[in-house]
């Protein structure tokens, strides 16, 4: 099995943990780590799998999860491009993207 296959299984595990044990955006965290390690390759596939599975498990519209996840990812991408490449700043950008996902998803789901 290739890297992407294993990573997808890991991502599914993270989603299950997210809705069963620990309410933290672990799935998005894994996607961001993939981007840092492998670049934009297959990132849309991972974003799509994450949004599809999370929305199916938690009975929310796919487009809503995909919209907030994509927005958080693009925010991360923008910050990574603009800000200097220092470990502390990268960590801050990670946290900002995850917090943004939490807030935006909560907000959009409240309006639906």
């Amino acid at each position, binding site marked *: 099995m290739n890297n992407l296959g294993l990573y997808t299984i890991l991502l599914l595990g993270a*989603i*299950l*943990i*997210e*809705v*069963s*044990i*620990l*309410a*933290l*955006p672990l799935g998005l965290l894994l996607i961001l780590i993939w981007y840092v390690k492998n670049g*934009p390759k297959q*990132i*849309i596939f991972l*974003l*799509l799998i994450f949004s*599809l*599975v*999370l*929305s*199916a*498990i*938690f*009975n*929310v*519209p*796919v*487009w809503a999860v*995909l*919209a907030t996840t*994509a927005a958080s*990812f*693009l925010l991360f*991408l923008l910050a990574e491009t603009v800000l200097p490449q220092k470990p502390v700043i990268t960590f801050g950008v990670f946290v900002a993207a995850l917090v943004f996902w*939490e807030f935006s*998803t*909560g907000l959009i*789901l409240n309006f639906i």
Partner: protein
Amino acid sequence: MFITLASLVIIFFFLEVVGLTNFIQTPLQKIFTPVQLAFYKSGKDVENFLGTITSIKGLKERETAATYENAWLRAENASLKKLEGENKALREQLGAPRLGEDLILAQVIGHDPLLGSSDLLVDKGRSRRVKVGYLVVIKNILVGEVVRVGDSTAVVRLLTDSGTKIPAETENQVGGIVRGEFGNRIILDKVAQGEKLKVGEIVFSSGAADIPKGLVLGEVEKIENNPAEIFQKATIKPLAPYDKLDTLFIINAGG
């Protein structure tokens, strides 16, 4: 990349509008529900294990069992007292729809993936005739309301959610509105100044707003009475510990 993602969001939005996302979501739910149940149970097992080893051996387990038993007994006792006093009124209601006629047993299999939210996921959905607006109870304790339904799962909004607003009354007929706050506490609000609230009193639904009368909402834990304000309020402690919920019943409040 931005254009691709935006296009995907738009495509899925339209698929949602025409109801085609169900074809993807339903099989995914069927696959993941049993796995998720196993994850949830394992998580709870680990949590219990850690709780047990950090406290005196066996104390945690006994305390949990005793908390449940105590909560149910108190709820039952309070209900019986109330029923006794309202015998006449209940007789008149015999013709009205009663609870317990259409109970759907459900297992908790997860919670909201967002921090600070108070939704639970249960393993019964549309295929078991669960609908939005159905109430979720344990015995006669109201836990929440079904807010989203999938084919084989449903999302239950707990009373602690800020969207909760239930007309309520205490054992001593003091009326108010029970509402959730910040997803982690329940408040009895809009209680007129001068009304006597007592710590430990059981709070019931008053029968308005499509919620059947007499469902237990919790007990008064702390009273906040500021004479300068028009209303007094109280913090309500749920009788069923929300973080330990396992088996629930879904009922059709409308009969």
